[in-house]
C-alpha cells in the first residue's frame, strides 16, 4: 500500500490565473537546484552477489575510480556487510557515495541465513533515519542518510535460470529496496544464450512475485528511454578498468586471445545501459522511491508494531500522545499489580517464617520444660534415697548403741560363769 500522493493543484479553492508580465518565479527550480548543490548529494548502493562475481570491478568501472578493496576470502562463515563511503566530485556536484558490499554471500555450505544480514542492514539504516526523524531536536539536513537507494543483484552467468538462493534473497529484499538484477561476467554467455537467459530470468521473477525496480515512465522527458530500457532487464554487464588499444582508440576492455570485449560497446554488453539508467537518468528517482515508498512502508510497519494507530474504530483520529497515555496507563497498571503481588508474596513469606520460628520456639520451650521436670524427678528420687540412707544410718546407730549397752552388761555374767 503505497503512500497516497496528493496533487496540490487539485484544491477547489484555488483559481487559475494568467500573469500580466514576467514575474520571475521561473527561477525557482534553479534556486532549488543550487541549494541542493551546496548541500551535496548522497547515494548508497548495495551490491549483492557471490564472492568473485565482479561487484568491485563493476563499481570501479561505473564510477571510473579505483575504489580500494582487497579480494574477499571464500571462507567466511557468515555474510558480512562492508559499507564504504567515498566523496566524488564531478563539475560542481559533490556526491557522497556509499558502496555496501556483501562479503561472503553464497560461500557457505548452508545458505539459509544468508539473506538475514542484508535485510538487517537495510532495516538498520531505516531505523536510524526514523530515530532521527522522531527526535525532538533533529537535524535532518545534516544527517548522513545511509538508506540504501539501489540494490544491484548480481546473477551468476550460468545461462540456465536463477538459483534458489537468488530467488529467496530477492524476494526478501523487494519490499525494502529498489532491486535491479544484472547478469555478471556477461562475456561468458553467447548472444543467443543470453537472450534466452534473460527471458527465463524475467519470467521466473514474475512467477515468483519478485518486484524489481521499474524505471519510471510517467515523466515525458524520459518515458521513451525508460520504457525501452525496462525491456532490456536484466542488464548483462562486463566490468573492466584495464585499457586496451582497439584500432586507434584506447578503450576499457577485457582482452582475450580470441578477441577484445569492450565495456562501452553496446553490442558487446549492457554496461552503457546500466550506467545510463542508474546514474544519468534515474538517480533522483531512485532516491525518491526509497524515501517515499520503502522508507514510508518501514515507518508505518514499525509504528504500527509499537502500537500506534491513526484512527480507532469510531474514526476518531488518535494521536501519538493518546496512544502513549493509554499504553502508559496500561503499563503503570501492570506495574502496580505486580508490585501488589510482590508485596503480598513478601508478607506471606514473612508470616510463614514467623510461624515457623514460633513453632520452633514452642518446641524448645517444651523440651526445656521436660528437662526441668526430669531434673526435678531425679532430684526427688535422690532426696528419697538420701533420706532412706539416713534412716538406715540412724537405725544402725541405734542398734549399735543398744548392742554396746548390752555388751557392757554381759562381761559381769561372764565372770560369774568362769568362777564356777
Amino acid at each position, binding site marked *: 500500500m503505497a*503512500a*497516497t*500522493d*496528493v496533487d496540490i*493543484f487539485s484544491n477547489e479553492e*484555488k*483559481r*487559475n*490565473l494568467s*500573469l500580466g508580465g*514576467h*514575474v*520571475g*518565479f*521561473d*527561477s525557482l*527550480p534553479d*534556486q*532549488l*537546484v543550487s541549494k*541542493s548543490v*551546496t548541500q551535496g*548529494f548522497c547515494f548508497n548502493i548495495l551490491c549483492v552477489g557471490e564472492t568473485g562475481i565482479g561487484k568491485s570491478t563493476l563499481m570501479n568501472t561505473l564510477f*571510473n575510480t579505483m575504489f*580500494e578493496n582487497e579480494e574477499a576470502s571464500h571462507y567466511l562463515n557468515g555474510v*558480512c*556487510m*562492508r*559499507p*564504504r*563511503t*567515498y*566523496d*566524488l566530485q*564531478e*563539475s560542481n*556536484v559533490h556526491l557522497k557515495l556509499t558502496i555496501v558490499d556483501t*562479503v561472503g554471500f553464497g560461500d557457505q555450505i548452508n545458505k539459509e541465513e544468508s539473506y538475514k*544480514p542484508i535485510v538487517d542492514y537495510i532495516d538498520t539504516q531505516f531505523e536510524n533515519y526514523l530515530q532521527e526523524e*522522531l527526535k*525532538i*531536536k*533533529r537535524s535532518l539536513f545534516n544527517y*548522513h542518510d*545511509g538508506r540504501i537507494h539501489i540494490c544491484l543483484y548480481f546473477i551468476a552467468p550460468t545461462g540456465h535460470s536463477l538459483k534458489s538462493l537468488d530467488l529467496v534473497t530477492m524476494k526478501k529484499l523487494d519490499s525494502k529496496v529498489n532491486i535491479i538484477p544484472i547478469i555478471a561476467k556477461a562475456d561468458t554467455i553467447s548472444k543467443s544464450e543470453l537472450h534466452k537467459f534473460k527471458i527465463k530470468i524475467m519470467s521466473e521473477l514474475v512467477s515468483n512475485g519478485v518486484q524489481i525496480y521499474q524505471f519510471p515512465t510517467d*515523466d515525458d522527458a524520459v518515458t521513451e528511454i525508460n520504457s525501452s530500457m525496462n525491456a532490456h532487464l536484466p542488464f548483462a554487464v562486463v566490468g573492466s*578498468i584495464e585499457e586496451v588499444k582497439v584500432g586507434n582508440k*584506447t578503450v576499457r576492455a577485457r582482452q582475450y586471445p580470441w578477441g577484445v570485449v569492450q565495456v562501452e560497446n553496446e553490442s558487446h554488453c549492457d554496461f552503457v545501459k546500466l*550506467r545510463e539508467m542508474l*546514474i*544519468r537518468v*534515474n*538517480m*533522483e528517482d531512485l532516491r525518491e522511491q526509497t524515501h517515499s515508498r520503502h522508507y514510508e512502508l518501514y515507518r508505518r510497519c514499525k*509504528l504500527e508494531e*509499537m502500537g500506534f494507530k491513526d484512527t480507532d474504530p469510531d474514526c476518531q483520529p488518535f*494521536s501519538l*500522545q493518546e496512544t*502513549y497515555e493509554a499504553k*502508559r496507563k496500561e503499563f503503570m497498571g501492570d506495574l502496580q499489580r505486580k508490585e501488589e503481588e510482590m508485596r503480598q508474596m513478601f508478607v506471606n513469606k514473612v508470616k510463614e517464617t514467623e510461624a515457623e520460628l514460633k513453632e520452633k520456639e514452642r518446641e524448645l520451650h517444651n523440651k526445656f520444660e521436660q528437662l526441668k521436670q526430669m531434673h526435678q524427678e531425679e532430684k526427688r528420687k535422690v532426696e528419697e534415697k538420701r533420706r532412706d540412707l539416713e534412716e538406715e544410718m540412724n537405725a544402725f546407730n541405734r542398734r549399735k548403741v543398744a548392742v554396746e549397752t548390752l555388751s557392757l552388761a554381759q562381761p559381769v555374767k561372764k565372770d560369774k560363769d568362769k568362777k564356777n
Partner: protein
Amino acid sequence: MHSEPKMELVWSEVNPSQSNMSAPQHQHPPGKVAPPGAGDFSYVGIDAILEQMRRKAMKRGFELNIMVVGQSGLGKSTLMNTLFKSNVSRKSVSSTPEERIPKTIEIKSISHDIEEKGVRMKLTVIDTPGFGDQINNENCWQPIMKFINDQYEQYLQEEINIDRKKRIPDSRVHCCIYFIPPTGHCLRPLDVEFMRHLSNVVNIVPVIAKADTLTLEERDSFKQTIREELRANGIDVYPQKEFDEDADDRMINEKIREMIPFAVVGSDQEYQVNGKRLLGRKTKWGTIEVENIAHCEFAYLRDLLIRTHMQNIKDITSSIHYEVYRVRRLNESNGQPNGQPPNGQANLQANPQDNPQANPQPQQANGLAAQHQVLTHEM
C-alpha cells in the same frame, strides 16, 4: 548537451560508516587517486542528477504562502497584485466589495495557481483585514500568531501520522510582509510589538508602504531610524543574521540588510512613459514608475522575494521556524521544561486549541521514563 567535463577525482574516504556486522573496519588513508587515462570515458554523469532534480521539481510544482499585515489603506492588496502581475489579492476576487473595516482582526487566505515558463506555483495570499484598525489594538498580533502556529500544527500533525501523504500540503506561512505607514518619523509601538512577537515564528519582511509620499532624503533617514529601532529592540527580520550560511551568503545578505525596509509603491495600472508601457502611478506632478529603482524599491523587493531568495525563505521556514515550533510542542507534551528528554522520542497531543497562552500540560514526572520503557519493551 553535456560537454563531457573531465571528472575531477577528489577521492577520499569519508567516515567509514559503522558496520554493525562483524566485519573489521577498514581504515583507508584519504588520498588522490590517479585519474584515468585520457579519453572520453572519464565522464561518469553524476551531474545529471541536477537535471533530474529540476525535472522532478517542475513536475511537482511549488507552493508559496505570503501573509500581508498592515493597517487598512496602506496598499497591501495593490502591492500583491503588482508583485505577481495579476489579481491575486482578496479584494480582486471577492464578489462583494467590502469597504467596511472589520471589528476584529480576520484572517482571509486565497489561493491561486500561476504558471510561468512551465513552472507551476500555488500561491496563497493571506490577508489580515482589521489589523491595527481598532481603537484598542492590544494583542492584535495574537490572532495572527495563532494562525501561523495553527499552520505549523497542521503540518506537524500530518507529519506524525502513520499513514502519511507522499507530499504533505504546505500551508505554513513562508513570509510575512509588514507594512509600515510612511510617517517619516519612527516605528510606532504597534509596529515594534508586532514585529517583536512575530519575528521569532515567521520571516518578516518590513516594507515602507506608499513610499511616494517621502522624498529620497526623508526616505533614507526614515529607513535609518527604523533599522536602528529594530536593532535596539532585538528584532531580527529577514534575512536574519544568524541564518547566514557562509561568507558568500553573508555578503549578499548584508547588502540586503542595508537596504531594508524597502520603500515600495504598488500599482496595477499601466501608463505610457517614454514610449513604453510601464506600471506606475500617474499624478499631476509626474508618473511614478513602480519598477524603476530610482523611483522606488519595488524591484528590489520583488527580486528578493521571488527571483533570488524564494527558496531560501521557504527553507528557513521549514528548517528553522517549524523546527522551533516542533521542539516546543513536543517538549510541552512531554512535560519537560527544558531541552531534550533522555531519549528524545516524539510524543504529541492533538490539541486544536493550541495558542501561546495555553497552560503547559500537567507535569508527568514519570511519564517519559515509562514511555522509554514502553518503547524498549515493545521493541
